[in-house]
C-alpha cells in the first residue's frame, strides 16, 4: 500500500478543505479527481507536511506522516500546481539543486539532472535560466525536479495546468510512460477527467473534502453500466410507468430518447415484455457508454444536491 489515510482533516480557519477523509492508495497510478476546491491539493500538501493536518493518521510507503516527515519527503517527488521556480538557476542547476536537497551527491545529482531533463524534453534548454522558460517548460522543469531523486511515490498536482493541447498530450504521455514502467507509484490530482482516464488505472473521486467513490476506473464505470438509451413509438406514459414500477430510473433527453437505468439483477429482456404489454414499438435500444465523466457528473451532481 503506497498511501493509507485514516480520518484526515485539514482545516483553514473555519473551512474544512479535507473532512475526515479515509482512503487507500495502492501501488500503481491513482487519480485524485474532483472539482476545484474539492481538497485534492490540500490533501497532497498535507501528506507532505506543507499544510498542517488537524487530525487523523496517515502513512506513506509505511512511514507515519507525523513522525517521519523528512524521510517521507526523501521518498516522494512533488510537482506543485503553481509555477514554482528557484530564481537565478539554470534548468540543470535547479534540478541538480533539487537532487542535492533530497540527499544526492553533487555529481550524481548533476548526472541525473541531465537524464531527467532529456526525459522531460528540456535537454536543449537546460542551460537557460528558469525564469525565461515558457509555461510548458515550467511544467516540465517541475516534473524534472520531482523525478531527479527517483522517488518511490510521485505526487502530481494538476500537471497539465496551463499547457496548450500539444503540451498537454506530451505531458500525459510522459506520465503514462513513467507510470507504465511500474517503478514508482503516482497520485495525480486533477479536475480534468481525460487526464486521469489516460494515465491512471485507479481513481478516488473527491468533493468538498470527502471521498465520494474510489476504485478501479473500469469498475467504477461498470457500476453504472446498466443504463440503456431507448427510443419508443406509441404511448410512452404507460411504458414509463411500468418501468418505474420495476425500479428503473428514467431520464428524458427532451425529444424521443429515454435513458433507462436498470436496477441490479434485472434482465434487459424485461424491457421487451413491458413494451409488448404496453403496445409501444421499441425502435432503438443500445447500452449507454459510461465514461468516467458520466460517473463524475452523476456523483458530483448527487453530492451537491444532497448538500442543498
Amino acid at each position, binding site marked *: 500500500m503506497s498511501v493509507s489515510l485514516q480520518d484526515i482533516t485539514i482545516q483553514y480557519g473555519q473551512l474544512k478543505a479535507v473532512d475526515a477523509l479515509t482512503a487507500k492508495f495502492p501501488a500503481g497510478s491513482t487519480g485524485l479527481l474532483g472539482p476545484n476546491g474539492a481538497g485534492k491539493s490540500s490533501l497532497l500538501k498535507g501528506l507532505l507536511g506543507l499544510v498542517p493536518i488537524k487530525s487523523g493518521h496517515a502513512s506513506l510507503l509505511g512511514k507515519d506522516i507525523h513522525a517521519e516527515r523528512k524521510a517521507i*519527503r526523501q521518498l516522494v517527488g512533488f510537482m506543485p500546481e503553481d509555477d514554482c521556480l528557484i*530564481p537565478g*538557476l539554470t534548468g540543470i542547476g535547479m534540478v541538480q*539543486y*533539487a537532487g542535492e536537497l533530497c540527499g*544526492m551527491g553533487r555529481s550524481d545529482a548533476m548526472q541525473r539532472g541531465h537524464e531527467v531533463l532529456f526525459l522531460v524534453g528540456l535537454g536543449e534548454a537546460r542551460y537557460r535560466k528558469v525564469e525565461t522558460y515558457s509555461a510548458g517548460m515550467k511544467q516540465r522543469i517541475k516534473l524534472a525536479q520531482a523525478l531527479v531523486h527517483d522517488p518511490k511515490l510521485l505526487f502530481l498536482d494538476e500537471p497539465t495546468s496551463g499547457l496548450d493541447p500539444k503540451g498537454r498530450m506530451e505531458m500525459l504521455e510522459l506520465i503514462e510512460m513513467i507510470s507504465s*514502467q511500474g517503478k514508482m507509484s503516482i497520485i495525480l490530482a486533477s479536475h480534468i477527467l481525460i487526464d486521469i482516464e489516460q494515465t491512471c488505472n485507479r481513481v478516488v473521486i473527491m468533493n468538498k473534502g470527502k471521498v465520494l467513490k474510489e476504485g478501479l476506473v473500469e469498475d467504477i464505470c461498470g457500476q453504472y453500466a446498466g443504463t440503456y438509451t431507448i427510443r419508443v413509438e406509441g404511448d410512452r406514459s404507460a411504458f414509463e410507468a411500468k418501468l418505474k414500477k420495476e425500479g428503473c430510473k428514467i431520464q428524458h433527453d427532451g425529444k424521443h430518447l429515454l435513458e433507462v437505468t436498470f436496477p441490479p439483477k434485472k434482465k434487459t429482456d424485461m424491457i421487451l415484455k413491458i413494451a409488448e404489454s404496453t403496445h409501444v414499438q421499441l425502435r432503438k435500444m443500445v447500452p449507454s457508454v459510461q465514461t468516467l465523466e458520466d460517473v463524475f457528473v452523476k456523483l458530483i451532481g448527487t453530492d451537491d444536491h444532497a448538500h442543498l
Partner: protein
Amino acid sequence: MPIYEKSYLSWHGQLLQKPMTWLVIAKTGIRLAWRKSLGIILFISFIPFFFRAGQIYIVSRFGDEEALMKMVRGIQIDAEFFMSFLKGQSFILLLLVIVVGAGLIANDRKFKALPIYFSKPVGFWDYIIGKLLVIGSYGMLITMIPALLLYLMRALLTQNTDFIQSFYWVPFSIVAWPLAALLILGGLTLAVSAFSRGSRAASILLFSIIYVPELLRAILSRIPDIGLISIHATLHQLGAIFFGAKHPYDFSNGWMVIVLLGICGLSLLILKIKVRPTEILS
C-alpha cells in the same frame, strides 16, 4: 557522447540518510548572490585591510626608523586597532548585507519556490540557517577573516611574544563581534526579505531600517539614549564591550541587550509567519 533513451531510467545510487540541506542551500545561495556590484563592494572593503596591513608592517619591521615612523605616527597595534578596523568595516558590512540578503527569501517567495524546498527534506531551520550562512559567509569575508589575518600578521612580524601575551584574547573578540553582528543583522535582513515581495522592495526597506535611524541619531544626538534607535550604534556599543573599550554611546548595556534581543525576536517571529511552504488565503 552518451546516448539518452526517451524512457524513464531508475537511479541506483544511495540517498544520504540525513542530508545537510542547510549546507546545500548555503552553497547555492553563495553562488547565486555573486554579482558585479558585490564584487565592487568586496574590492572596496579590502582597501582598508591593505592599508592596515601596511601600517602593521611598518610598525613591526621599521619601528626604529624615525622617518618611516612619522608615516604611522600615533598608531598603536593594540585591541583598539582591531576594533577600529572592524568598526570601519561595519559600514561596508551593512551595505553588503543589503546587497546579498535582500533577495534571499523575497525572490523565493516571488517565484513561489518555498513548496519546492519544503517538499524536500528541508525543515524551517535548515532553510533559515542556509540563508543566514549566505549573509554570514560574505560578512565574515570582509570582517572576521581580514581582522584575523591582520592579527596573525602582527603576531608573526613581532620579534617577541609580548604582543600575543598582551592580546591573546583579541582573536576571540575578533570572532565574537562579527558573529554576533552577523547573526543580528542577518536575521533582520532575512525577516525584511521574507516580508517583501521582491528584492528591490526589500533593499529599500532594509536601507530605511538601517540608515534612517542612524541619520536621526546623528541629528538628534543630544537626546539621551537616542543611540538605541540605531542598529549601527547598538552594534558598535556591542563591539566596544567585546574589545573592552570605552563605550561610544551613553545608553546602558542592559537596554542595548534588550534592543538587540528584541530585533532577534521580532525577526524570528516574522520569519515564522512568512516562511511557509504554502500561502493560505483567508
